[in-house]
């Protein structure tokens, strides 16, 4: 139950993270460096998607491992092991949610801070 809920949360957060970042903007306005900027932005966008997907996969595997540990703990009556496993699942979900919410905001902040040339 918890596992299914966590996966849905991660899925929705991933969709937000992929669609709400600075990388949506093209490299327009770069003057003679515009074509290069377009290429860099394209590669960065692809890498961003790859990283988000990998994070989801790593988080899912981590949660499966934690659930397995919890189930094993329950099987042998190890209440502490089960508690630790539950906390691990919650911790991974929190980590991913915070990261996917915080990093786009940080990226937007950095984008807003971009200085004009001082010369």
């Amino acid at each position, binding site marked *: 139950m918890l596992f299914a809920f966590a996966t849905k949360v991660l899925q929705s957060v991933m969709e937000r993270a992929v669609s709400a970042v600075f990388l949506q903007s093209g490299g327009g306005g770069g003057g003679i460096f515009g074509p290069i900027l377009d290429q860099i932005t394209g590669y*960065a966008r692809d890498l961003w998607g790859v990283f988000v997907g990998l994070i989801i996969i790593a988080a899912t595997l981590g949660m499966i491992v934690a659930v397995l540990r919890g189930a094993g703990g329950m099987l042998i009556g190890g209440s502490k092991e089960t508690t630790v496993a539950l906390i691990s699942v919650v911790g991974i979900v929190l*980590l991913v949610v915070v990261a996917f919410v915080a990093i786009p905001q940080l*990226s937007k902040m950095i984008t807003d801070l971009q200085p004009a040339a001082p010369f």
Partner: protein
Amino acid sequence: MGETLQIILNVLRQAWGALTLFIVSAAALAMLAKTLSTVGASSIGARFMVWESLATIAAVVILVLVAFVGIPPIVRAVATSIPGAPGCGPITELGTFASGLIAAIAGVRMMLAVARTIGGAAIGGTAEVSQALIEVVEALFGMLLAGVAIPLIAMFFTGGCTQYQLPISGNSFWATPTH
């Protein structure tokens, strides 16, 4: 000469913009890569790696803040710190041209140094922020040479600019107007 300088400065301004965009992209990707590392470490229960990844994310944010908030005032200060070139005619114009160009190139090189640093921090390498500060000193020295010393030396050897003369004694680094 002034128009040529503006054309070259425009190209350097575009390079500056491209570098800042590259820094934004690199920083965002670095933070996401470190998040992946954090999640992986958290999955296998390695707490030390989690703290290391979080520290790297904070370092990347601080580096970007230094680059975007700290470097422009330094470049502005360097660009305005050199006095007007002594002498007259094309020598002075060339000195002013070279000073402006050196300041602009120094700004772009500082931003490039920070971009390299962020890239290095993202993959766990060493930070090279000091390189950006070395660029400032190099630029100041180059601007002094191009804007003051070389016009003075050229004036001395070519014997031009009759309204100026080099002093016999005292501060030999500066020409004294005779009128």
